């Protein structure tokens, strides 16, 4: 019995990718911190007594202009981030994957229409659109997450469509048709399980960019005032003049920024590692 390289490779190849493993661990940590937030830190509200404290043992990330502990804010911010990521991923998957599958498999006008729609939405400047919508409907965290998710589908649809186009021509798909397998099963079982790799890669990307979008929205003032998010922390720092005025509590905006960067880098590394493990013959 022979083993073909593409199947044998994935888990060992992934494990070999150090950056990917680090990313995986990082992602797991963020998820755990976010889920366990109530157990890890008190919900920051009201006023504290020690304003603008430098990072210390008591407050590892310092305190902000209201005397609140920044580490707690970051922990609760993680909760928001993974919430937004998961909502975005769910919506992107629910809309983007079927759109890509249908568009890639059925060669008729339906495929062309969906493809054009994908192009259009990839071209449009999404942030201004989300801003307009968020401004109009009000910015609870649920709304923000849903809006971001609703506009994450085009890139996933594009990836799904391209993969579907390649796979549809393969003989096992023709065989499935001949064997009387229904179209829906062909799309969502046969084709999907073969193309799940690039879809996963794109989903990690969606998780990263959705948090960037949410942070951006919060920074611009469209975040949910009742939840803590990393973007909101940064906004508060900015509004209080923490960046260029004196006194200069740089730690106030530094740690939430680091949180965002780490979050994005972990997901990107994870995605890259999955991608490389799937394509052993790829560019490097």
């Amino acid at each position, binding site marked *: 019995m022979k083993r073909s390289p593409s199947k044998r490779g994935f888990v060992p190849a992934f494990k070999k990718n150090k950056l990917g493993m680090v990313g995986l661990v990082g992602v797991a940590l963020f998820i755990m911190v976010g889920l366990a937030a109530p157990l890890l830190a008190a919900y920051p509200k009201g006023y504290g007594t020690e304003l603008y404290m430098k990072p210390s043992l008591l407050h590892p990330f310092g305190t902000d202009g209201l005397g609140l502990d920044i580490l707690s804010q970051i922990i609760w911010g993680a909760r928001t981030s993974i919430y937004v990521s998961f909502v975005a991923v769910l919506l992107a998957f629910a809309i983007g994957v079927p759109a890509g599958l249908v568009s890639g498999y059925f060669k008729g006008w339906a495929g062309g229409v969906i493809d*054009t729609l994908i192009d259009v939405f990839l071209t449009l400047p999404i942030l201004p659109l989300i801003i*307009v919508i968020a401004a109009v409907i009000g910015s609870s965290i649920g709304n923000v997450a849903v809006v971001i998710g609703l506009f994450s589908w085009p890139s996933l649809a594009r990836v799904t469509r391209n993969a579907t186009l390649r796979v549809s021509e393969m003989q096992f798909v023709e065989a499935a048709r001949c064997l009387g397998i229904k179209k829906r099963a062909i799309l969502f079982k046969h084709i999907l399980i073969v193309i799940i790799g690039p879809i996963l890669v794109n989903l990690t990307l969606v998780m990263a960019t959705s948090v*960037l979008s949410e942070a951006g929205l919060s920074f611009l003032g469209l975040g949910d005032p009742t939840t803590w998010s990393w973007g909101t922390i940064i906004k508060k720092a900015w509004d209080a003049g923490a960046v*260029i005025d004196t006194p200069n509590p740089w730690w106030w905006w530094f740690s939430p920024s680091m949180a965002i960067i780490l979050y994005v880098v972990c997901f990107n590394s994870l995605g890259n590692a999955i991608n490389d493990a799937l394509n052993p013959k790829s560019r490097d």
Partner: protein
Amino acid sequence: MGKYLVRRLLKSLLTVFISITLTFLIIRLMPADPVSLMVDPKLSPEVQAEMRRGFGLDKPVPVQFVIYIGNLLKGDLGLSFKTREPVTTVLMQRLPWTLLLMFTTLVSSLAVGIPVGIAAAKRRNSHFDRIVNVIVTLSISIFIPFISFAFLYVFGYLLGILPTGGAYTPPPGHGFAYFLDVARHAVLPTLTLFLGNCATIILYSRNSMLDVLKEDYIRTAAAKGWDDRYVTRVHALKNALIPTVTITGLMMGSMIGGAIMTETIYAWPGVGRLIYDSVNAMDYPVLQGAFLLLSVTVVVMNILTDLVVSKLDPRIRLGGGKA
């Protein structure tokens, strides 16, 4: 090539049409009172009533849509709640600043990104390539407020050598002095936007160059003993540039998003900053107008890059292929 350009033009029109429709729908179908989004509640009741009629708010939705498009074609985007000026006027004042920022960002990103990407491709897996890869990975999903804060902190607060906001130090001067002043103010915003865009361009240049270098026709030319630089420059470069130019077009949408944040932080008087101010002032007509304007800007820039791509890509130039 004519067929290709016609198809792209049609798609561009469709994109603009969809953004118009989206804006229209957002106002009317959202769980918010559409009237308060278009007519300033602080106006006197008579003026409000008249504006309502002007927008056709008492008529059925499809009729409103027609009126809306009609107004758009006349260049009427409504009145700003804040300043009572026509939205169009406000936008046109701000647009040149945003275009300036995007122009400098684009030029610098391409000027640096393409050579670096190609150099990295030719020296695959060398130290240079690895460093480039790390920088690209970190920069590509950068969080703009962070990088701007870092720049402002270092250059503005610590070193104090660059201005921390605005496009010029008022009052606006004339001539060369004014030009220099604006240029000085433009350094940090451009640098901020440059990082993310340049990273994307490096990534695409490197990858498409790698793909091209692997192609058989390159190996054939090299085997024939052609001078390495000639091979690279003439054959590989042109083909490697095609995906890069294409991605530049696609990048416009996200560059606009980055511009919004950058202008906000640096108080750069462009459309992005306008959006921020309008959100805070709940100036909905300006918000909607800004989105439309930015959509059209992106579409136009895409058409321009399509023109460049069509010149570069012989498959399109000579017709026949489905590029």
